[in-house]
């Protein structure tokens, strides 16, 4: 039962893995282009395992931004993960012990969360944690493998197809737009608009990583404003 649940989770991760692999590959290529050590590039994917924020982390690392700014920006971007864990925990049996929650928490990415929320309630309670573990394993392996391949072959591929360098510049905007479109706008539109406008304006006056931080903080403060958008 346990092994079968894990196997089913791995199989269900294939669509996520198919989407992750090319993005992770482009991350590996971007790491090479940014002049980051190959080991650091792989470690970012292996340790942080958080799509969009990894590209930002890469950009800030290569630009020489200060440690507090890099860490704060990365963590603020990943702060939405605070919303995921509780929902997942509510779907698992209270008494479940294996795999332990600290292990299941590591692989709780956006796509894994979305897939898990859609499937967990269809599974028997005793199978859920193992299925989730399998789902996370498939996604994680695809992410790390894609990164390694991008780092190993990225330089040659970009030299051969220089247009790839420019094309990869759209990966991040596309990723963030997709994440924005996945949001529940009834709950967050004021925060989104304030963050976007403040970032847009400040980009012309201060370094981009400071504009991002100011935009995020302004957006969070915007949540205090009364109105339907912040219900």
């Amino acid at each position: 039962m346990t092994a079968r649940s894990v196997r089913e989770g791995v199989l269900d991760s294939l669509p996520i893995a198919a989407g992750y692999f090319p993005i992770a590959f482009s991350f590996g290529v971007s790491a090479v282009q940014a002049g980051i050590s190959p080991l650091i590039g792989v470690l970012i994917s292996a340790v942080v395992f958080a799509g969009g924020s990894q590209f930002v982390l890469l950009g800030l690392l290569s630009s020489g931004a200060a440690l507090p700014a890099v860490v704060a920006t990365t963590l603020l971007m990943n702060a939405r993960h605070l919303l995921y864990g509780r929902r997942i925990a509510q779907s698992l049996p209270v008494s479940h012990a294996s795999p332990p929650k600290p292990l299941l928490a590591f692989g709780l990415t956006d796509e894994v969360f979305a897939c898990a929320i859609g499937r967990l309630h269809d599974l028997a309670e005793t199978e859920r944690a193992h299925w989730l573990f399998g789902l996370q394993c498939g996604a994680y392996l695809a992410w790390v493998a894609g990164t390694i391949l991008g780092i190993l072959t990225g330089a040659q591929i970009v030299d051969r197809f220089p247009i790839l360098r420019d094309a990869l510049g759209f990966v991040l905007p596309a990723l963030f737009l997709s994440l924005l479109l996945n949001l529940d706008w009834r709950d967050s539109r004021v925060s989104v608009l304030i963050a976007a406008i403040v970032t847009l304006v400040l980009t012309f006056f201060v370094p981009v990583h400071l504009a991002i931080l100011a935009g995020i903080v302004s957006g969070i403060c915007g949540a205090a404003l009364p109105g339907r958008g912040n219900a």
Partner: protein
Amino acid sequence: MRDFSGALAIVALCGIGTYLLRLTPMLYRSGSDGGAASRFSGAVGPAAIAALFVAMLLPLLGTVGKTSITTVALLTTIIAQRMFGGVAMPTMLGTVAYGLLLVLRMS
């Protein structure tokens, strides 16, 4: 360029921090759903994504040609998101559209 140990420390801090952001709510599943704290924590993610989207998009705008290509690629991303949902597929299709348009403009 930052030295190896400095980069390693940053990666470790980001990894530990991200992990704690995922783990902490799993360990404390009970609590109230409403209130200011809930509203603020709910706004963090959307605000971060919006700010990063704007910051990453701006370098892709400028000339009419660049802006047109970026606009079409953004529309492709939106349409793909509406058709397939999720994040991975729209991201890939939007990027492929952007790359193809760049090739067309050069040829």
